[in-house]
């Protein structure tokens, strides 16, 4: 297994995972304390089935409410066609088999542009940052 970088398409050796959140678990199961305890280790969200979309909500919660800024890995059953959804919900990597890397790269390249503003999107025109993201107020116009 290897880590697929959802932003660049590069492959990485797997890093250390400090905490795994089951995609189907309650959002209150993961806390700020869990994040602090990570140190430099990565956080993973496990998908038991690719069609169980709770992991996407969990990722946004971890990014936007818990303000986690580190490596977020999608583990378990995820398919290449979810690459862009994973990235846009805040995952940085997907844990995949090496043999699937070409499909993941291709799926990433084929993803249509984003229709809506989630964490970031080319269609965004808003100057108001998402309140849940505790990041500095952006002054620049988002590009189309």
């Amino acid at each position, binding site marked *: 297994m290897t880590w697929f970088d959802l932003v660049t398409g590069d492959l990485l050796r797997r890093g250390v995972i400090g905490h795994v959140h089951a995609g*189907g678990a309650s959002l209150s199961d993961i806390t700020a304390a869990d994040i602090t305890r990570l140190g430099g280790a990565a956080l993973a969200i496990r998908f038991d089935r*690719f069609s169980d979309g709770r992991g996407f909500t969990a990722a946004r919660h971890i990014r936007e409410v818990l303000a986690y800024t580190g490596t977020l890995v999608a583990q378990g059953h995820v398919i290449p066609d979810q690459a862009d*959804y994973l990235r846009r919900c805040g995952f940085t990597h997907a844990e995949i088999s090496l043999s699937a890397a070409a499909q993941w790269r291709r799926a990433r390249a*084929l993803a249509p542009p984003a*229709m*809506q503003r989630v964490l970031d999107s080319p269609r965004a025109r808003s100057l108001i940052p*998402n309140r849940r993201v505790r990041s500095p107020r952006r002054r620049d116009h988002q590009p189309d």
Partner: protein
Amino acid sequence: MYRYDEFDRAFVERRAAQFRDQVDRRLRGELSEDEFKPLRLQNGLYLQLHAYMLRIAIPYGVLSSGQLRGLAGIARDFDRDFGHFTTRQNIQLNWIRLVDAPDILDRLATFDMHAIQTSGNCIRNVTCDPLAGAAHDEIEDPRVWAEIIRQWSTLHPEFAFLPRKFKIAISAGAEDRAATGFHDIGLRLVKSRGDETGFRILVGGGQGRTPRVARQLAHFVPKRHILSYLEAVMRIYNAAGRRDNIYKARIKILVDAMGIDAFAEAVNTEWGLIKDGATDLPELEYRRIAAHFAPPDLAEASPVPLALALAQRHDAGFARWVRQNGLPHRLPGYANAVISLKSAGRPPGDASASEMEAIADLADDHGTGEIRVTYQQNVIIPHVRRDALPALYRDARKAGLGGGENGLISDIIACPGLDYCNLANARSLPLADRIFQRFDDPQRRAAIGRLQVNISGCINACGHHHAADIGILGVDKKGVEHYQITIGGRAGEAAAIGRIIGPSFAEHEVPAVIGTIIDTYLACREGDESFAAYIARSGTDGLKAAVYDDGVARARAS
């Protein structure tokens, strides 16, 4: 109507290219069927009884004449020369080959159409009042919001793998012509006491095994916050909706389980975190979209043109057609003309490719080039001058589309049923035709008045039988097609679920049973009260007695 810009075009083209790659990978075996199925469903491709069916999106039911001609071409080049308009304002083609689907999506993209999210566990086509922008009783054009919500919900990365399908409908009229009470989320545009425009939000409506009328979730959400509010609802549903049982996975089940108050509280808590954030539409973007729905420039026209009055006097058939199919318009000199896709021998909602082209011509020649698809499986030509109605009627009749069934007993809604659908217990289309033909006398139809008959081939209720004056549900009784009758359903503002009146009937008995119900109604009604009013007033005991205790119904059938 909304016109695609470069971004929109690039989007559908890229989506089509993405699907082409997915189909190639599936055919090569790089994707399993289990992995491929949600991907093809979210591009509208659904495996049915005989073949793949492609459900093409018609966003909130609005089509240009050019788009309708494009659909006719696809029906000819890739299918069997006809299409079926659905209860969710989409169109279905029944004989699609998987290997052709990428070419079809490419072709659809050339006239700004697609099949995105018309199936699958995602947010489906947002449906709308088919008279939007032309209605006499609306607060503002709901299509602006249908388009905004469409864009927000299209390939939304967080909500692509929901527990189950999710259906949203929007209404802005005093009369609810979008059946918002039977949707997962129903939105009704309203004015607050301070004259601010916003949405009354209904949740948890639906047909199927556990029919529900939607309950009020919020009495007023300012329109600028609708996207963040919807996002809060979707997030609660995505996180907490059941995933262990597909029959218990809709949001109506979650609302039942949590209770409406707890559910509302959960939504409000989440909404509090995200409103005024990046989800809600900036004013500039709202204005960009709203500009596409500016009312067309309609020349002043007389509300009582002489040509119309003369035609009505000379042609009783035309007079009947105008009365039923000429719907009021926001301008007194105009009308919205229903083209009924209901006739003897025609599966309700089906149109051949040449008929689609004829409808496109009607829109160009007598309207503004726009067509609307209705939840009752008909089409509407909006913005027709009243003095053009005789010419439109004449041209419609030439094309075999001059039926004046709108709202009558002959305006049957039917799902495709066992003739096409894998899920069905019984056929719906032959029965629809037999009922249509039983009531083929125009004067009798007019005398019966407004009466909605809906037929579903199975408990999934895609024919919306729960929401009909007379609902017919196909059931399997030891391998023989049987039908259960429900009475008293309603789809509008006072939505209601029909009640079963007794044991099911064999197919050959049903038309006579309907006949008995109608005869009883006509005999017992007060004045010219509608069937719905008669049922509300006197209940179903009289009908039950006539149908079950009276041997006439059974004797007539045998």
